[in-house]
């Protein structure tokens, strides 16, 4: 008997996604934005795992989740390195002020 259905996973995922978007949009600190992005990625990974668990026979969804985690880790490493060098240069990591990447 299934106590925990797919809806539960999707609701958790939705909450995580919404929280991620909100964090990304509202935060000034780049580290905060970054954490929001991590939330979005993880909600997607949760979705994969859930769909795979309830619909597929193989473990493709789980495999994707693992890929996403690995990618997120790699991304985090690069992003933190970038942040460090930005901080060294500007002595701050406020997204509002770092708006030089435009025409």
């Amino acid at each position: 008997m299934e106590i925990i259905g797919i809806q539960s996973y999707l609701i958790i995922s939705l909450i995580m996604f919404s929280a991620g978007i909100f964090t990304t949009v509202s935060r000034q600190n780049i580290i905060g934005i970054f954490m929001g992005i991590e939330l979005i990625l993880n909600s997607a990974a949760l979705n994969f795992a859930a769909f795979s668990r309830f619909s597929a026979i193989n473990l493709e969804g789980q495999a994707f989740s693992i890929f996403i985690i690995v990618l997120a880790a790699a991304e985090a490493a690069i992003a933190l390195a970038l942040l460090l060098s930005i901080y060294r240069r500007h002595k701050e990591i406020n997204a509002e002020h770092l708006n030089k990447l435009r025409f």
Partner: protein
Amino acid sequence: MMKEIIQNYGYLIVIFPLLGALANGLLGRMMQKRYGEMPIGIIACASIFFSFIFSIIAFLSVVSMQNNLVIINNLFNWISIGYLKTDISFLFDPLSVVMMLIITGVGFLIHLYSVFYMKGDPGFYRYFAYLNLFIFSMLVLVLADNMLFMFIGWEGVGLCSYLLIGFWYEDMKNAVAGNKAFIVNRVGDLGFLLGIFLLFSLLAEQLSAGGALSLANGNSSILSFSFLAENVHLLGGINIFGMSAVTVICLCLFAGATGKSAQIPLYVWLPDAMAGPTPVSALIHAATMVTAGVYMIARLSFLFSMSSTALGVIAVTGAATALLAASLGCVQNDIKKVLAYSTISQLGYMFLAMGVGAYSAGIFHLMTHAFFKACLFLGAGSVILALHHEQDITRMGGLRRFMPMTFITFIIAAFAISGLPPFSGFFSKDEILWSAWSSSNGHPLLWFAGFLTAGMTSFYMTRLAMLTFFGENRSGLIIKESPFLVTAPLMILAFFSLFAGFTGVPEALGGNNMFSHFLDPVFGIQGGAAHHDTMEYVLMSASVLIVIAGAGLGYLLYGHRPQLARILPEKFRHLHKLLYNKYFIDEIYDAVFVSGTKMFASFISAFDKYVIDLIVNIFGFVLRIEAMIIGWFDLHFIDKAVDLIAEFTLSAGSGARKIQTGRIQAYVMLMLFAVTLGILYRLIF
């Protein structure tokens, strides 16, 4: 055995001079700079000498044959298109071996002589390269087995004469003389070429009509002499332009001969050809070039014999040329000019002989003339060298004491050309005169022209000898005899001038006319009966008498009573002026042909300038207008459209640019907004 040599290696006769010409022409400049003139002279003389040796072999092998007397050295097939099949092959028969011996023999002596004559000339190597090439061309002309191959030699001879006459081309006068020789020859060559074309096309037509095509497509080529001799009778009945085809062909070919052999009306180049070095004149006048026309007619005697009209034209032209040139020779003061006119006059004799069908007599005279004319020219060269390039005989005189060898040889040759017995010229000239009288094509008037010419010849030769070798030395120079290298050829040539005539002593004088009988097979004469009657003795005595009379007059005027020679021209001032200016023929040609051509050219030039150019300019103007309209349209319509597109793109870009703020949150919001919009769109529609 010898026959096989010639059959297989006969071409070497022609190859040696060609190799000599190539060696001197390509490497001569370097050799002359590095090793001096010696090797060049040796190469040039040796090549002709080898050629001469082979000529002797060829002569002996032809003589030793029992019948037929023809050897053909076939090298390879040259052209093979339809009926036109031509081989590179050489023909050795009595006629060609005689010519070959004259060319290489006299040519060799002239080469030897030139080694000294041209000493110190910066163009030494060039000179000998041309000279060898000249001999090569002439040998090709003489030995060619067919008319096309012969034409190569024919043109080569013309080219070499141009190169050698204009040898000292830095002097404008010489270059002009070279041009004149070349252009006048070109006029004749056109006739020759037309003759070949006519002969070929008509004969090919007849052969294909008569079903004899298989014959033509077989081994024989249409233009080879043996094939022509057998088949030329097919042309018998054809008429073109209201004349018999054979006559037209013969006249065309004869036009070529007048160019090469300096006959009326194309003789004008020969006196000017004196501009070249003297040995070249000797070569042109004696061994090569001018004999080409005579040889060609003799070679095609079977063709010419078919048309008595053409023969008549040839005989009359020959007699007229002989008379005209001899009259001019009487008053010229340039030693080489006198000799040049005598050559034209003697060539007239040869054509007279051809015209009355006495081919072997013509060739006989050609041979004896080659010896004495070469001797005269080389002697003149020796005199000119001794007098430091003085050519005016009025400023010579008394040379006999200083140059005994030159004097003796010159006098022998002068006797020979005058036709005194027993010098060679007597026999050959006498045979021609007798033929002119007695032959079926002959006429007493033709004989009379030749008879008068004989008198004039002996007159101007005596005059020349008197003014050059007798009397006082008027040059004011100290004169030395020329070295052995110069006198040796003179002696050899004088020897032949004296004795060559004995090869053709006529039956009337107890001889057997060996020379003429040797040539008989070529001219298709089957050993006719000995011809002699009392008339022959009468004519012979008459010509000897007029020769002596001419010589006596010459002696009287220029040796015995020099003052008379000064008075006479003043007495007959108009006649003298006319003769001295060569009947103003050069001026007339200049006025009619040269100026005519120039006027035509300037007319054409004006036409080009004012009519053609105008049309072109109008076209150009129209095009320019058109281009202007198109340019305006391009500027105002096409370019405008292009500009508009660019401007639109630019403004669209600058509008879209405003979205990019550089703030990450704004981007995220935008993205969110867009995605939401997309989802809503999907949900509603």
